């Protein structure tokens, strides 16, 4: 399983396009927002938590179809399905690789983008915490969506339609953590909900995603 993880990471970094693309998209989004809203610092600080979370969500979405599609095309997905490790494990590892290549860079770079959007410095830790806790759920749910649409001809467009509604609870609680952190209020409840969603998706989504993959490999 570790070999599989390393293989996916190497592919993502060497194949070009995958790694860093999400980050670049995130940067573009954070640059575009002030042009659309206007450069008033107070307004930007107010909407920054929402923009950063929506940006993370869209950046994540951008690379989802790469989770399984390339492996299906060159046939290695069939090999993985017949390999001694269970397909559920394959899904979990691939989602983890996706998180390391898109979620983790976002978490690390988020304070910088928060700075661009005039987010108060005291809020930065909460921004990082909420993204750190929430983005694994985005990768897991995305892996489910990718598993459903992997065999389809026009999967990419459909993928966003299927996955984005699933992202709504994560988005609500994630942005709420930052908002409460900015106000100095207690963020224990939304943070607990966010962690709960992530834990539940880590535990349950591999089974649903593996079932969907088996259907598509049939």
């Amino acid at each position, binding site marked *: 399983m570790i070999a599989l993880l390393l293989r996916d990471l190497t592919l993502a970094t060497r194949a070009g396009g995958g790694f860093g693309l999400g980050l670049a998209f995130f940067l573009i989004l954070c640059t575009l927002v002030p042009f659309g809203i206007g450069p008033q610092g107070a307004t930007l600080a107010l909407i920054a938590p929402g923009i950063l979370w929506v940006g993370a969500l869209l950046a994540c979405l951008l690379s989802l179809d790469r989770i399984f599609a390339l492996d299906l095309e060159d046939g290695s997905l069939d090999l993985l399905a017949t390999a001694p490790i269970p397909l559920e494990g394959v899904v979990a590892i691939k989602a983890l690789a996706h998180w390391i290549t898109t979620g983790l860079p976002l978490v690390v770079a988020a304070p910088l983008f928060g700075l661009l959007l005039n987010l108060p410095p005291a809020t930065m830790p909460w921004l990082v915490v909420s993204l750190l806790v929430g983005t694994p759920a985005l990768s897991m749910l995305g892996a489910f969506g990718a598993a459903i649409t992997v065999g389809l001809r*026009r999967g990419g467009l*459909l993928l966003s339609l299927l996955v984005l*509604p699933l992202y*709504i609870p994560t988005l609500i609680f994630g942005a709420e953590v930052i908002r409460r952190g900015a106000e100095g209020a207690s963020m224990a*409840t939304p943070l607990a909900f966010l962690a709960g969603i992530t834990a539940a998706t880590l535990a349950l989504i591999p089974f649903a995603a593996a079932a969907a993959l088996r259907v598509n490999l049939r």
Partner: protein
Amino acid sequence: MSLWEYANPVKFMRLSGAVLPWAVFAAAFCTIGGLVWGFLTPEDYRQGSTVKIVFIHVPAAMMAINIWVMMLVASLIWLIRRHHVSALAAKAAAPIGAVMTLIALATGAIWGQPMWGTWWEWDPRLTSFLILFLFYVGYIALWPAVDDADSAADLTGWLCIVGSVFALLSRYAVLFWNQGLHQGASLSVAPGERMSAVYRYPLYLTMLGFFLLFLALLLIRTRTEIRRRRLAALQAREARA
């Protein structure tokens, strides 16, 4: 004799063919009767004549949720017991549910404008219905995207299960996210919160009418799906010959 025998398409077609005219008649009777009765009710002292929207709004909202639950049950039956009629019934129900959600959203907007002074508000109930509509749209879009019929049934079934969990989660998440403008349940059991009987009985009748309407539409659409499946099988046989 068991309920599962009606998973046999031939038996299902025979039974549904016999039931369908009665279902259509009963649906028309209850829906039209309830709406006319509702229209003739006196005007509310605060809301005026706009209170009559309740006779479309509440039954449509009720069906919007219940049709998704019915799709969930049908999907589970398909995934566990592989009954084709069940999968086709879930497929046939989805557009009806989406339209019911749209009706609930639209009548709610028309009602909200005079009552709250706004067409749309990011209120938990309204927002969760919008999210439910998105789930319906995703589900409907996935069906024709998959070429193989059984694979499509499997994938939409899994989508329906995961979607149900997240639709429920979204419901409580938006409750957390924003305080509501929408009032509580219209048919509360608590005596102090109940609607007056003048409105309640026509409402019961329209709710029954909308349920029967769904049943009739579902039977028609499921029969169409079965016939379409048969036609495809016949064409495939022709092509081979």
